[in-house]
């Protein structure tokens, strides 16, 4: 039994919570793995903030078109049924509540669903927000895809975010390498964890109070590399 999921395995786990026909926005970085793990026979429509619905996989060298990139500025393709539109329409989709799921990276998620993922407030990096605040405010569900703890071991699921917020009360579920945790009005509910990891051990790595769901399930370990 591995002690943690790989990032591809976390992405696979997120795919299981995305429904056929959902319109999904994937944040830059780790969340992009979700597209790679989506089975080819499922129709999930990927939204890219730069005016694309129906974002497809990385182009072959022949397909590559310098006018077609994803939000992470990487070359992309369009699937049949895809469409292009301008930035105001793109964010009307986001702000207007039309995106079913946004998968975002996170620095911190608070027990009330507050999300911090755009700046640590330090001056080391240029401040940059992009579309993160719009997605946090507008998507029907916000999935946070992240390591359970920071590099120094500090919990990233916390009572209250210490970093500047991206959005308030927006995260619906957190997917980490060791657990799937729903953020609900009644608190942080562990929906899945490793069968052999006691709740106490998970709690010890978490900064907010956890409750184990009555119908919790063991975290699956898919064979996805």
């Amino acid at each position, binding site marked *: 039994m591995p002690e943690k999921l790989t990032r591809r395995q976390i992405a696979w786990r997120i795919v299981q919570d995305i429904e056929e026909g959902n319109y999904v926005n994937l944040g830059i970085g780790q969340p992009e793995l979700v597209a790679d793990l989506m089975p080819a026979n499922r129709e999930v429509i990927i939204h890219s903030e730069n005016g694309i*619905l129906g974002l497809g996989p990385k182009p072959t060298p022949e397909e590559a078109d310098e006018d077609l990139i994803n939000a992470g500025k990487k070359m992309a393709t*369009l699937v049949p049924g895809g*469409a292009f539109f301008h930035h105001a329409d793109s964010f009307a989709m986001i702000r207007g509540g039309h995106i079913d799921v946004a998968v975002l990276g996170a620095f911190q998620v608070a027990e009330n669903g507050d999300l911090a993922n755009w700046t640590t407030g330090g001056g080391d990096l240029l401040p940059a927000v992009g579309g993160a605040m719009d997605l946090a405010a507008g998507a029907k569900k916000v999935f946070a895809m992240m390591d359970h703890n920071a590099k120094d071991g500090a919990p990233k699921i916390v009572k209250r975010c210490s970093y500047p917020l991206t959005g308030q009360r927006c995260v619906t579920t957190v997917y980490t390498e060791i657990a799937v945790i729903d953020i609900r009005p009644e608190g942080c509910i562990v929906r899945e964890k490793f069968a052999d990891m006691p709740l106490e051990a998970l709690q010890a790595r978490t900064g907010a109070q956890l409750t184990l769901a009555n119908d919790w399930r063991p975290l699956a370990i898919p064979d996805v590399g």
Partner: protein
Amino acid sequence: MRSAPAKSKIMVNKEIASLDEAVADIPNGATIHVGGFGGVGIPIDLCEALYRQGATNLTLVNNGVASGKIGLAALIGAGRVRKIICSFPRTPDPEVFEKKYRAGEIELELVPQGTLAERIRAAGAGVGAFYTPTSVGTPLSEGKEIRILGGREMVLEHPLHADFALVKADRADRWGNLTYRKSARNFGPIMCMAAKTTIVQVREVVALGALDPEAIITPSIFVDRVVHVANPMREV
């Protein structure tokens, strides 16, 4: 390992077999956006299906109020409409509406056409409210908040959400991407954005990928149901 979600199906197909099925779940008391301008682009077959369906106590949002006797006029004539929100009720043949209106049996909210369009778009775009110079100093801004912005008086207007939108488009694919024809486009694209459930009648359903992605006017995300009506009725 968790199985696929219960709602999963093999592929996304928003096409509904019949008009009646498409409007079956519209409840009494619903607010409904209805596309069309001057009879062009009005989803008359969907309106007729709604008439057959029986829902009542409706609030309708449309540029006008219906000419003639069928579609919206039939709904109004049958007393099924509580309120109309529109810019131009003085249609070529407004007899059915006028009778109800003069009898005090239907409520009318008159909105300048551009404000109507922008309120609908605001609902679709998640804008909470906006300031516009239109109607300042006129009876249509009475009682509303006025604020000076950019040196100009502006009135605060609120989004116009709907439970359902009934729209007529030209072509659709099974995901619900839409194109329109000429001036029949009018309110369609913004109404598709603004309703919880958007129902579209189209002249033609084409294969996924057949619509030019540069020329899709309503992307599929704004559409819930598509009904194929090859030969639509006309209002007059």
